[in-house]
């Protein structure tokens, strides 16, 4: 157990060195959400409605936070796929290290990275007029939910990479795979304003649960309607990520073991 932790930490440090040595990659992952804030907040924002009234940018920002967590999927999946394609995983597998370290190290490093991204996003948000209104405690709880979602997405990404293997393919499929989850959700538009079927799908979307929950905790506008998922957003924002981890972590571990087939 202690070796698993020690090896996991060594691998975490390895992945953090990657970030330091390739800062251009980090800039890429920041630029998309910042662009979304500017485009949706300022260009379309004037024509968007928030149910129950309120500032659209303040409605949008929690959605952008969640979107940033989601697009971390790309970094995770390409990172793992690149390792697999370059033979360095063979070296790890031929060494007397903990089998789990490759995956726990990736997960921990991506979490640290998400913390950096969150800090930057919070500052950007404050600059465009977003704010948390219900105190630091609830704001920190909201950040906690975002990071929990990020951990869940990391495991989806690890599994995806082990399934697809080819880093180019992974890079190509990540965006089309992730985008519908942000579109059919409450990130940009309140589900109440959507056609009924799509609205229902949006409300049950795991991303929507986190978005709704952090809007509530930050005290931002756009608390959606009286449907069951809208009223139990906090519960779902914990349950969904836990369910995703419980599903994809064992799948990823099994897939990793299958490398020796």
């Amino acid at each position, binding site marked *: 157990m202690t070796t698993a932790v020690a090896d996991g930490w060594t691998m975490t440090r390895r992945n953090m060195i990657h970030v330091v040595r390739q800062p251009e990659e980090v800039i890429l992952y920041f630029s998309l959400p910042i662009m979304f804030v500017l485009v949706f907040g300022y260009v379309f924002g004037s024509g968007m409605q928030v149910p129950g009234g309120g500032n659209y940018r303040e409605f949008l920002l929690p959605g952008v936070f969640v979107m940033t967590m989601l697009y971390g999927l790309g970094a995770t999946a390409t990172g793992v796929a690149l390792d697999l394609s*370059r033979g360095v995983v063979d070296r790890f597998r031929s060494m007397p290290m903990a089998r789990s370290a490759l995956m726990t190290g990736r997960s921990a490093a991506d979490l640290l990275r998400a913390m950096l991204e969150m800090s930057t996003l919070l500052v950007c948000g404050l600059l465009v007029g977003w704010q948390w209104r219900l105190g630091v405690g609830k704001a920190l709880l909201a950040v906690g939910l975002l990071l929990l979602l990020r951990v869940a997405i990391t495991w989806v990404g690890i599994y995806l990479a082990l399934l697809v293997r080819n880093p180019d393919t992974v890079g190509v499929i990540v965006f089309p795979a992730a985008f519908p989850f942000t579109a059919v959700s409450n990130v940009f538009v309140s589900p109440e304003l959507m056609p009924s079927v799509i609205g229902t799908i949006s409300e049950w979307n795991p991303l929507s649960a986190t978005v709704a929950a952090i809007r509530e905790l930050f005290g931002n506008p756009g608390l959606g309607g009286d449907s069951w998922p809208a009223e139990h957003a906090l519960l779902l924002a914990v349950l969904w990520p836990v369910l995703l981890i419980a599903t994809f972590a064992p799948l990823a571990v099994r897939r990793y073991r299958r490398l020796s087939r």
Partner: protein
Amino acid sequence: MTTYEVVAEGLGKRYGPTRALDRFDLAVPTGTVYGLLGPNGAGKTTAVRILTTLLRFDAGRATVAGFDVLRQPDEVRARIGLTGQYAAVDETLSGRQNLELFGRLFRLGRREARQRATELLERFGLAEAAGRSAGEYSGGMRRRLDLAASLIRTPRVLFLDEPTTGLDPRSRNQVWDLVRALVAEGTTVLLTTQYLEEADQLAHRISVIDAGRVVAEGSPDELKSMTGGDRIEVVVRDAADLDLAARIVAPICGAEPERDPEIRHLSVPVTDRVAGLVDVVRALDDAGVAVEDIGLRRATLDEAFLHLTGHRPDETREPVGAGRKADVG
């Protein structure tokens, strides 16, 4: 008594209908270099991946450094080093960071890992490039870094899977020197190669593999003698003398010479090397045949290979039952 560091008995590995390894046997004596020689797709890489615990097998058993590959993989992993044809290093990290990372994973303390990295960078001529990303290294440097990573804890058994494929002659010679130095320190080396010269230069014993099976086993000299051993080769000055020369040589060597009128050349196997050569020279001289060139030539491992498998080792062959996966996967 000879002890064996790597033993495989009846190893089998299938990919669907494809047999990548078929009743594969191997016994590598402690402290020697053992060569697995065969064309692409013969099963060399499959064998190495099984013995280094990277790949499961379907039949047989294998031990490395006295531990069962299947049941005690961690014991095996703690005692082996592996350098493959594709450099298994982290291309984003610097050379030094790579070695420190692997050192930590080999359970060295932070200071020990740093110290060992410094030693290895020095020894492998990478000290100046220590701070650069491994991705920026040349092919030879990357291979040396890969080899250094395999030696962080001096392994009892070092597996080298086509260690010089794609290297220029100078880098190749450096790798060969490093391997010889390691063996002098007591490491056992299992080497796969498709280059006969490499097997001839480095290996004490060789297994020739084709289509997942061992088709011959022995020292380089033993393998060479399987093709009929040494030959006497004669070039006559006048092509018209070629038939006469063949008639004179045949009874002395007890075999019908091969003739090539184009280059006025004949070649015949010989058992009693020096006496045979002296007799041939004397008989040709007595008969007044003008000889331009005459000499003894050892059979090459190339000929041995052709003789054993029916094709040349550097021809990429896709035998029935050994697809790409068998070699790369």
